[in-house]
């Protein structure tokens, strides 16, 4: 064991992913590096085809890197077998996808409880965790509904509850607002900010820069590479804000 990656919840170095094509290989990610500290909320953004989802999938063990290193909470994970990755994901990672991916023939409550149980909770603990999460996310009255009866925004909030059910070290979100209208986007974003305020580490991929700007850091990707990794600091002087702000008060 080296000390690399210690201290950070996630660290990746020189990550590359090449997909074999029919005639030519396509490199989706070339030499990406990033570190996420505990409790940090970072957004990865960039145009479609920039490699941001591929990067997130590698970091969550859904895609194996061609080369490079990934450290999760100080443990090297990039060479793990699929079976070990699956256990790690169930226990320590929460995933939110663009298309919700809820189990359609289970109730909202069961979707969340199942994730808690797979994360190692007892039935009783899972039920308590589900009640806590659904009420926190404003979904308590939908507990016994089928996912299909919910709006897109509600389904994504259920998906967020499911992702949080195992109290993950790291929450990974792949275009979580990509299929939502602006009101539902704002609601999901508010919830992400709230769980972040409670200390949740979040790494989110989005092409929506309004969503990205809610993070502590914005990582810009282009053509498979990280081209900027910027802490979000408010403009240093109020006069730097657009004139619209003068209408306030």
């Amino acid at each position: 064991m080296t000390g690399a990656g210690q201290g950070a919840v996630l660290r990746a170095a020189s990550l590359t992913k090449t997909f074999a094509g029919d005639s030519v290989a396509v490199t989706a990610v070339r030499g990406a590096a990033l570190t996420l500290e505990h409790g940090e909320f970072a957004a990865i953004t960039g145009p479609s085809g920039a490699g941001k989802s591929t990067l997130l999938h590698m970091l969550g063990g859904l895609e194996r890197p061609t080369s490079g290193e990934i450290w999760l909470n100080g443990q090297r994970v990039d060479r793990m077998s699929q079976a070990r990755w699956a256990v790690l994901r169930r226990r320590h990672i929460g995933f939110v996808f663009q298309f919700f991916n809820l189990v359609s023939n289970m109730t909202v409550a069961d979707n969340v409880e199942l994730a808690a149980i797979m994360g190692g909770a007892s039935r009783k603990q899972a039920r308590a965790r589900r009640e806590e999460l659904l009420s926190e996310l404003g979904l308590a009255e939908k507990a016994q509904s089928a996912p299909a009866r919910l709006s897109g925004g509600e389904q994504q909030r259920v998906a967020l509850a499911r992702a949080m059910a195992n109290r993950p070290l790291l929450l990974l979100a792949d275009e979580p607002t990509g299929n939502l209208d602006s009101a539902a986007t704002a609601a999901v974003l508010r919830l992400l900010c709230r769980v972040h305020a409670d200390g949740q580490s979040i790494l989110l991929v989005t092409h929506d820069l309004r969503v990205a700007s809610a993070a502590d850091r914005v990582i810009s990707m282009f053509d498979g590479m990280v081209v900027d990794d910027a802490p979000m600091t408010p403009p240093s002087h109020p006069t730097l804000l657009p004139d619209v702000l003068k209408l306030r008060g």
Partner: protein
Amino acid sequence: MRMPLLALLAKEPAHGYELKTQLEQIFGEAYPAPNIGQIYVTLQRLERDGLVCSQDVVQTTRPNKRVYELTDAGREAVINWIDQPSEGPRVRDEFFMKLALSPHTGTSDRLGLINRQRRYYLAQLRSLSELAVAAERRIPRLLIEGAMLHLQADLDWLQRCQEEVV
């Protein structure tokens, strides 16, 4: 007008007519070049302010021409201009000037220029998001959202700049 002339002079000394031709070549229809009179007036003011200096060059077959050159203060002014983030949103875009002229100044790589501008817009977007959440009245909120949409368009356009010129 002042900063584009200083930026062009950062590359090499030139006389007024050369500067006009260069402006036309760089900006085309995007920024119609000012007439030669405006350029000479601006150059005189820049000289008065100590940002450029000039000397007459004797020509045998034509009238003498006055060649302008950047002073240290002028070079500092143009570096500061290139490195400062610019206000938005607008149609006539100062950032576009910087992007087009930065190779002449030798002070800034274009990716760095785009990244700094993106950070600046993102920070504004975040401030506006926070304000939009706090805004209770519909009309101010709509105006804030309008400003955010302008910023999103500016950010999309930065992406295009990156695709085309970096």
